[in-house]
């Protein structure tokens, strides 16, 4: 079978291989030239060039016949189209005759014309048209790629002029308003204080504000108070838990190998913690990138920094893997996962398309893909699986923590001891079997008994050893430098078909100020990181600010966050994107500063209310005339529910519950063991591929096997059923009810108010209170039979009301409550 499904047969490459022999210009007689110009060229131009010229846009095959070299190269069959002097063996003629291929496809050419071609080929197919189609195509592509907007360096041409000078002078707002005005749109009013506070809490830390925080801010919703809130949230340890999770979507973070055999990865979690900490300490993004690509190669000032650098490289090791694959396949697939993840995440390019053929839309040749492949195949990936059934490629891990090296040494020695004893058991058992299999009469009963006793003794020793196992260090996944190698292009994605050399290198189409050179003995990862963070690299900064924007506004300025290529969508506000990209770099790649700037803009603070005039012009809100009502992600929904009930455990998890499971096939471990009950924040729940927590699966969690830049938002009946009947929701509703009873034991109104404040971050209206009271009375009546105890009945009724709040659109969406007034707070300059 083929090495890869989806491999295109690649006539283009054949064309390259064969065409060189025809590169020399033929000598032509005057008569031959005339014949060609009169009889052949006009036919080619009229009937063939549309699909078969270098310039042709809609080429179905890579066969071009507008040069001598091209027309004599191989067609899609892989055969050379013309054998000069031999019409019979020239597939071109067969195609004209409609013998196998039918060309031109619309209508067969007249017999006389075909006869001309036959004659022409017999003459030796004289052809004055010089040029190398391969080179010409490359040049054209280069020209085209120059027009790919994302490869041009970001430019700041000054803030745009706006008519409405009063609305805001914040630079972000200037760009946004200019686009609005261009499209005859106007900004809606500002969000209410409550809605704004809720929005910024969820956006920055993924949790709702407490009732006290709501009350404090709504009493005094000034610009200063808002800025203070923003600064507090940015310095909260929960910021990293929120924004780190966004990053983990891209890093396809998971704690198992996925694919057809799905081995748990007990030591993936240190990468998770690294990411959370990195966002919390506002690690400069260029440094963050560098550590993940090449942390192991960085100088460190102390052991702590050294460890942090190492843990970062987990990024390269946690991808899905087919541990059962053959050696070559495994190596290439591993590098493919790394290339895919690195390029999509940092560059917003789909480089992995070039594994089998030159990228169809973007200027990425296979050679560039394998140049990156050389870098990653010069790297040792430490994913830490042992050889067991279906797992063929063992690898060590990175020990870390206090005394890690020493502890690891002791632990490995301990394992070795057990290993040795196990071997002895095996030997003794072999002996026993041999003895027992002898004729019964000849059996040496004593020897058998001795063997058995020996086995028993050894087993006891092993047990004893296992009981007194030395303390293990913590382990992490990551990478280390391997032997530096240079691959050749694997033609059609098949490593056994070797193409040109592809030495360790970068993407040729992406311009940088200074392309680093890779030393002959270096794997090239550090240089790759340098190349990416080069101030001239037009992609890295743009891609990241676009991601930040997307998480705050619902949709990116480039709506396809992982694809800044030809087939991605162009930016809706190109000047704004460039401004942000430049600002990001000028602010030393500070993610927090970028977020701060964006959430202080008036655009961010807009209300979600509708405006008919605007809607008729821009129904999708592309130009941001209002805030988009965004749904909370699975994690935020779960965390918010636990926060409302007061049961949320805000202390970070220590390690992962997958660690004690060890390396197992996930299918052999019950769901309950893979996902034990937890009240921790969702970012700390175990992510075993294909066995993620149910609530995650219901609410569009990112597929943990793919690089996800943007999650889907679906609304399904299954989600409704989850809110109606799931044990978690019922238990949390009850816990919330208990808390409300405790905090307001005498007063129903106070309980309702508190419920609204905790769950929806706002006070209920008097109408709402009345309505809920009515509901509670009815609910208690309804429960009369089911629950004879009055106090319990009251609690159950209250819990059923809390369940309704959890189920509501207002709980799930960051949306402006309709009866609230907008609050205009002064805009900072």
């Amino acid at each position, binding site marked *: 079978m083929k090495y890869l*499904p989806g491999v295109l047969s690649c006539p283009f490459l054949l064309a390259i291989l064969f065409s060189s022999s025809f590169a020399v210009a033929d000598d032509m007689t005057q008569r031959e030239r005339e014949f060609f110009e009169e009889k052949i060229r006009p036919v080619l131009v009229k009937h063939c060039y549309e699909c078969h010229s270098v310039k042709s846009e809609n080429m179905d095959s890579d066969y071009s016949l507008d040069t001598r070299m091209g027309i004599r190269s191989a067609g899609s069959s892989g055969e050379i189209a013309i054998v000069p002097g031999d019409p019979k063996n020239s597939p071109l003629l067969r195609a004209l005759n409609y013998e196998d291929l039918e060309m031109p496809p619309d209508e067969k050419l007249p017999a006389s014309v075909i006869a001309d071609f036959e004659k022409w080929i017999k003459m030796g197919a004289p052809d004055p048209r010089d040029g190398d189609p391969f080179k010409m195509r490359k040049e054209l592509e280069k020209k085209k790629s120059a027009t790919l907007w994302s490869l041009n360096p970001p430019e700041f041409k000054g803030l745009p002029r706006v008519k409405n000078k009063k609305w805001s002078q914040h630079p972000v707002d200037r760009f946004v308003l200019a686009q609005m005005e261009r499209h005859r749109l106007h900004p809606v009013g500002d969000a209410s204080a409550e809605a704004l506070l809720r929005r910024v809490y969820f956006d920055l830390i993924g949790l709702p504000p407490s009732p006290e925080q709501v009350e404090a801010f709504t009493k005094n919703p000034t610009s200063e108070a808002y800025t203070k809130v923003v600064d507090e949230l940015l310095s909260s340890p929960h910021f990293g838990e929120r924004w780190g999770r966004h990053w983990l979507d891209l890093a396809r973070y998971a704690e198992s190998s996925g694919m057809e055999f799905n081995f748990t990865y007990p030591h993936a979690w240190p990468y998770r913690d690294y990411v959370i900490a990195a966002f919390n300490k506002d690690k400069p993004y260029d440094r963050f990138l560098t550590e993940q690509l090449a942390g192991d190669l960085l100088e460190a000032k102390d052991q702590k920094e050294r460890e942090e650098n190492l843990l970062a490289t987990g990024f390269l090791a946690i991808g899905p893997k087919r541990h059962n694959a053959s050696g070559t396949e495994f190596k290439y697939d591993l590098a493919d996962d790394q290339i895919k993840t690195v390029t999509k995440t940092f560059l917003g390019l789909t480089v992995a398309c070039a594994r089998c053929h030159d990228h169809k*839309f973007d200027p990425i040749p296979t050679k560039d893909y394998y140049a990156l492949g050389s870098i990653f195949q010069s790297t040792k990936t430490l994913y830490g699986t042992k050889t067991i059934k279906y797992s063929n490629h063992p690898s060590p891990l990175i020990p870390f923590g206090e005394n890690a090296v020493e502890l690891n040494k002791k632990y490995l020695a301990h394992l070795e001891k057990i290993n040795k004893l196990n071997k002895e058991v095996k030997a003794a058992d072999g002996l026993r079997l041999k003895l027992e299999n002898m004729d019964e009469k000849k059996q040496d009963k004593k020897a058998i008994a001795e063997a058995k006793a020996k086995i028993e003794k050894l087993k006891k020793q092993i047990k004893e050893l296992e009981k007194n196992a030395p303390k293990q260090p913590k382990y992490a996944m990551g990478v280390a430098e391997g032997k530096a190698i240079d691959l050749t292009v694997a033609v059609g994605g098949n490593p056994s078909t070797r193409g040109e050399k592809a030495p360790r290198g970068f993407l040729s189409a992406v311009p940088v100020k200074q392309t680093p050179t890779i030393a002959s003995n270096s794997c090239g990862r550090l240089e790759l990181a340098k190349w990416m963070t080069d101030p001239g690299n037009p992609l890295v900064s743009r891609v990241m600010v676009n991601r930040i924007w997307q998480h705050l506004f619902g949709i990116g300025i480039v709506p396809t966050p992982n694809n800044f290529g030809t*087939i991605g969508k162009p930016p809706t506000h190109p000047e704004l994107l460039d401004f942000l990209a430049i600002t990001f770099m000028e602010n030393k790649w500070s993610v927090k500063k970028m977020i701060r700037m964006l959430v202080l803009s008036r655009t961010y603070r807009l209300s979600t209310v*509708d405006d008919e005039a605007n809607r008729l012009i821009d129904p999708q809100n592309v130009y941001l005339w209002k805030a988009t009502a965004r749904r909370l992600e699975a994690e935020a929904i779960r965390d918010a529910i636990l926060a409302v009930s007061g049961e949320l455990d805000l202390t970070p998890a220590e390690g992962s519950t997958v660690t004690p499971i060890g390396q197992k096939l996930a299918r052999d471990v019950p769901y309950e063991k893979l996902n034990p009950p937890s009240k921790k924040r969702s970012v700390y729940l175990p992510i075993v591929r294909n066995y993620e927590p149910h609530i995650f699966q219901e609410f569009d969690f990112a597929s943990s096997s793919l690089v996800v830049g943007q999650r889907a938002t679906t609304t*399904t009946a299954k989600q409704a059923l989850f809110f109606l009947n799931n044990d978690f929701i*019922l238990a949390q509703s009850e816990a919330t009810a208990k808390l409300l009873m405790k905090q307001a034991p005498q007063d129903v109104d106070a309980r309702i108010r508190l419920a609204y404040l905790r769950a929806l971050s706002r006070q209920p209206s008097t109408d709402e209170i009345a309505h809920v009271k*009515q509901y509670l009375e009815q609910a208690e009546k309804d429960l009369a039979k089911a629950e004879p105890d009055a106090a319990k009945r009251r609690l159950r009724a209250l819990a059923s009301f809390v369940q*309704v709040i959890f189920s509501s659109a207002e709980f799930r969406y960051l949306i402006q409550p309709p009866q609230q007034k907008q609050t205009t707070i002064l805009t900072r300059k």
Partner: protein
Amino acid sequence: MSKPVQQNSSGHSVSRRQAIKGIGAGLGCLAASSFGLNVQAGTTLGSLGDAPAPHFPPKAKRVIFLFMRGGPSQMDTFDYKPALNKSDGKEFDKKKKTKLFGSPWKFKQRQESGLWISELHPYLAQCADDLCLIRSMKTDSSAHPRAIPLLHTGSFAFVRPSIGSWIVYGLGSENRDLPGFITINPTRVFGGPANFGSAFLPSSYSGTRIGWEGESLKNAKFSNVSNKKVPRSLQQEQMKLLRSMNGQYITPEAQGVMDSFELGMRMQDVAPNVMDISQESKETLEQYGIGESTTDNFGRQCLLARRFVEAGVRFIELGHGSWDHHKDIKKGLPDKCRQTDKPMAGLLKDLKQRGLLEDTLVVWGGEFGRLPTLEFGSGRGHNADGFTFWMAGGGVKGGYSHGETDEFGRRSVIDPVHLYDLQATILHLLGLDHKKLVYRYGGRDFRLTDIHGEVVHKIVS
């Protein structure tokens, strides 16, 4: 809030439906698509803006896929090879030292069509005139871990959506109360859930699972369709309160949430009913072999499939294993056939009797077939180059046999049908062009059949 607010805060009087229509994510879309699905993410928009519909008039509206995990032996069931039987014990491959292994079971021509079917399927043989045998199947791998994801998703090297997800994505659901794609007792191994996962399609397109392979279905149920804390009458009150809370918003988001709850409430009633087979007649239960120890479980799977079909589920997969008979095939294969034969025949007859077979496509097969040679002295090894699938109903010729393997059943030689061709054909029967059923993800359009697949027109009735 005794008077629910029906205007938005700016006070202009746009009707709720108008507002929703303007954004194109309202009830119409919700009801027509999968399982009340309503997609809003940027990358996935566009392809789902309109209610999904077939590309051309379909022959079948839904599919029941009987997945026989492990690779059923074709030359012992549906691919009659007299030459193989004559050459029993003769050397086949000198290098590998393999010997031919004639089928221990007798074949007969069945019904009017005269299809050859072995004695291992006495019940199914009575449905021969409805069967369309494809005896020239091929796939790309003879290893379970690759072949199973290949069969389900078209790929083993990458994470791709399952065929059921593609179909529901392409056609939407036929019903409003149940999922569009249900898998009963799927295998946990070789990809497990990935075989009914939606990969880059929104997760609502993934299959809803009931049970795992080998589990009893007696107490199987959908999750989250009932609870002990809130009586139904109170739930109705909850809905009223929820309606008035959500009713304050004139937004598609709030409308979508409310609609999803209306659907969920209905599903709560419908789902347990569909699962409850106690109202089925004694004759029906007997027809499926329910109550007989050998056939009870697969009989239940088949009966549930019919009930799901009636309820408008688009794609139903029934898992059964293991057909991986490397050894002891003389005992193992008849066991597996006995467990499934009567239930499958019962299903076909029942569907036919109810007029459902015409637009329901039933597909039977494994990830590959088996070799004509002897393995371990008593079984057969894997064969990816020649094996049999059968289809029945929805637009395929009945009593028809397509394609042939060589004289021993080793390789498909006449009209070979590759796995991708099979997938293309299933989509075709459903009115979907496998080349047009695409989804843009990460920079390119993906399809189930990747760059492969030819529709097998000869089997279309």
